């Protein structure tokens, strides 16, 4: 596995590996003009195009209700229990259209989602949760992966047989992350993995995510409310508003623009003034949206 991947579209060496990718695109995941409805009536996602290069960490940002979770659910193929449908556009993974695939085929092809709010099987033990994460792999691979997860999160070792519903928020996030990694996904999608966690745990989670990308070559699509933190580790960022991607750029350039920071990311460069400006910022955004 190589280190930090190059960003150039044509020069990504990963595209010529054994994965059999088409030579025209270096993207592992490519969404083109995706449009998503709930109940055939609510247009939650209007027009989203985004591309995630192999081995990169891409941040998907935006305010509450922008449609980030909906996009991740669409990629994982789990919109149907909520009567959601992809009405337009294409979702390609590894050069294949996955929009019509069953969720288990999508997992088997290498995409795993850590859902919003962790969503552990709270009546199952930690180990049973992890075993479920390895459901699509062979028993032997799952046993190996299990040891790898305990190495990665030593705190879980002593809690193997605890019912996961009783763990602390931080431990639960480790289980959620570990569970997702059991099948060794090519693309790991994380929906607000730091929600409600203490700063120290957040740091730990982020360094784990960075290590996965930089050392193991995993590709990550990260949805985060904490935009500054997400952009500090990301290779590229997309900003969604009202079901659309309104901006995409490198983190450096997104962070350099004060207006972007303020309107879309919810913080100003002068971090100290952030709290005082919260109210004003909220009002301005509302005006912007109406």
């Amino acid at each position, binding site marked *: 596995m190589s280190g930090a991947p190059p960003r150039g579209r044509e020069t990504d060496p990963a595209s010529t590996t054994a994965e059999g990718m088409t030579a025209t695109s270096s993207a592992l995941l490519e969404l083109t003009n995706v449009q998503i409805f709930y109940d055939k009536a609510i247009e939650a996602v209007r027009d989203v195009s985004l591309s995630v290069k192999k081995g990169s960490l891409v941040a998907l940002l935006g305010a509450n209700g922008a449609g980030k979770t909906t996009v991740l659910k669409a990629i*994982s*193929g*789990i919109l*149907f*229990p*909520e009567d959601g449908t992809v009405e337009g556009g294409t979702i390609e993974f590894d050069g294949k259209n996955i929009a019509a695939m*069953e*969720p*288990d085929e999508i*997992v*088997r092809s290498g995409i*795993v*989602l850590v*859902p919003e709010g962790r*969503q552990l*099987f*709270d*009546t*199952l033990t930690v180990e*049973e949760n992890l*075993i*479920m*994460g390895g*459901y*699509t792999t062979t*028993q032997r691979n799952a046993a190996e992966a299990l040891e790898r997860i305990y190495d990665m999160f030593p705190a879980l070792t002593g809690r193997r047989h605890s019912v996961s519903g009783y763990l602390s928020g931080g431990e639960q996030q480790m289980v959620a992350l570990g*569970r997702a990694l059991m*099948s060794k996904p090519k693309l790991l999608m994380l929906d607000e993995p730091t929600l409600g966690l203490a700063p120290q745990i957040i740091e730990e989670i982020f360094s784990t995510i960075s290590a996965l990308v930089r050392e193991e070559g995993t590709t990550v699509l990260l949805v985060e409310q904490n935009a500054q933190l997400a952009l500090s580790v990301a290779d590229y960022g997309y900003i969604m508003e009202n079901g659309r991607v309104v901006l995409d750029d490198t983190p450096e350039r997104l962070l350099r623009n004060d207006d972007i920071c303020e309107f879309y990311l919810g913080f100003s460069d002068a971090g100290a003034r952030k709290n005082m400006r919260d109210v004003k910022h909220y009002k301005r955004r509302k005006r912007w949206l109406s």
Partner: protein
Amino acid sequence: MDYFLDLVISGLMVGALYGIIAMGFAMIYKATGVVNFAQGEVLMLVAYIAYTLTTLIDMPFWLLIPATIMIGMIVGLIVEFLFIRPMIGEPVFATVMVTIGLAVFIRSLVVLLWDAFPHEFVTSLSEQVIEISGIRLYPSQIVAFITYLVLMAAFWSFFRYSRIGIAMRAVANKETVALLMGIRIKHVYAVAWALSSIIAGIAGVLFASIYDLDPTISAMGLNAFPAAILGGLDSVLGSGFGGLIIGVVENLTGGYLSTGLKSVSGFVVIILVLMVRPYGLFGEPEIERV
């Protein structure tokens, strides 16, 4: 005291059969959220097919059990495929209605293909009454009780150690998240129906070999229903245990009060228990599903 003990022991023997059937109810409810009102009829169908088999081939008892397992599995898979699978995604209530229709259908089918007269279900088990310290039992009753114990132990380890067993608990806990693990819900449903029909069939064959085989055997389903409610409809082992309680309570009521109250007493017990624990003795307070 001897009379009391006699009632308790024979109550346990009947209770074992209730328990086995109740486990079948719980199995389907746990995995799919549906109360299968055709449980007694599936039991009847498997028992009749097994009966026909014994009239065609001279079968030793040790072969009758695996034969019943095969028949039960095939019946369960066919029923699931024809009647239940098309209902996936429909409201649970509609599926429950389908099982009620299925019950009527199977009952008519059995009378049509066989007849409505009692048949002696001959097994190679001896009919000699055994006396163990003053308590008189038929060998088939003892076999029934041992089968009950074996099934309880088998299901305990199935849900604890087998991947598909853990997956069943995961589906019962959070169905959408189970999809994210790559678990095929349809598989889990089919396995639940197959297992449930297998144990219903075993109960049917045991019951028919203790008494006789005629269409009223389908009432065993409804008779065992209080056991499932008592133990907690979503707890397979709890339901199995509930069977013993109901069996003993019914027998004591019949022995000390009046035979007429016998079948009512089970329902009285569940009403009393449900007032204190609305989800049964061993059930989970709530199950989340989509």
